[in-house]
């Protein structure tokens, strides 16, 4: 069976990249389905994307309130069962606040909102999210956030590094992230978060199509999963 795998894009109040993510996934061969955050269950999907935006106005701390959305409970169960989950920007912040990914995202050291293409290095090309990348490949993908500075204490950081959980690094200092970390995976390898926006880099017309490598890797993983389940 080679049908387009269904991928949920969870929509929170304040999400603003949900449709961009859905469009990009569709362009890369998936069948995206938008899921409102109040849904207590996910539809039958093979992967989940938590999109960028400012869920709940980023009140308190970014992602801190969205993690209590009913849909997040369903996403946590999906992840625990091995389902691929990708959090982009605000989605990454939510996954950290929910404890599905280690560390936390803090205001950029410059305190400014950073919106530009950034160079990235693929540190781990053996994840399901980077399967289409080469080890140490240089990617160009835009960031657009005020709170993209990832933090973990030295012990946690060393542990993640030793286990290959650091997946993407900025190739130049961008926002003060510990170790210039731009993207990480969880220990099991099926939950990833990244601050850059791959969905905004899937067509050369927009300056770079490097984001397609990450999203198409996710679509591949979703396709494998639907084939395995059927």
């Amino acid at each position, binding site marked *: 069976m080679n049908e387009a795998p269904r991928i949920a894009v969870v929509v929170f109040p304040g999400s603003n990249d949900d449709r961009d993510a859905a469009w990009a996934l569709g362009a890369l061969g998936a069948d995206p389905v938008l899921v409102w955050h109040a849904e207590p269950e996910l539809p039958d999907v093979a992967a989940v994307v938590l999109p960028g935006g400012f869920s709940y106005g980023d009140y*308190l*701390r970014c992602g*801190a*309130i969205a993690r*209590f959305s009913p849909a997040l409970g369903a996403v946590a169960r999906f992840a625990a069962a091995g389902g691929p989950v990708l959090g982009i920007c605000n989605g990454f912040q939510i996954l950290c*606040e929910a404890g599905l990914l280690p*560390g*936390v995202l*803090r*205001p*950029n*050291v*410059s*305190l400014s909102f950073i919106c530009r293409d950034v160079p990235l290095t693929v540190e781990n090309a053996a994840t399901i999210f980077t399967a289409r990348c080469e080890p140490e490949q240089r990617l160009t993908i835009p960031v657009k956030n005020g709170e993209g500075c990832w*933090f*973990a*204490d030295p012990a946690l950081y060393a542990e993640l590094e030793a286990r290959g959980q650091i997946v993407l690094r900025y190739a130049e200092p961008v926002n*003060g992230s510990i170790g210039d970390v731009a993207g990480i995976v969880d220990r099991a390898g099926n939950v990833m978060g990244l601050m850059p926006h791959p969905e905004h880099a899937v067509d050369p017309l927009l300056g770079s199509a490097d984001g397609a490598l990450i999203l198409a890797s996710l679509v591949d993983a979703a396709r494998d999963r639907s084939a395995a389940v059927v």
Partner: protein
Amino acid sequence: MRATVLVRPKEGILDPQGQAVEEALRHLGFHIGQARVGRVVDLEVAATDPADARAEVERMCSQLLANPLIESYEIELEPA
């Protein structure tokens, strides 16, 4: 009871907001050391027993109001 929760960036955690405030205050001519910026949450708690109220606010802090990786908190209670 009334509860006041003071949430602060943990010691040693870089606080760019505090640094910006610090610089602005120096710019205004104030002679200051370090400035740190946290947040205050004022709460009305249904519990009337101080120990119960504190236990409840502790749970609020650990579940939502503070992120233990980067923030510490203090709870102050007073009768409503």
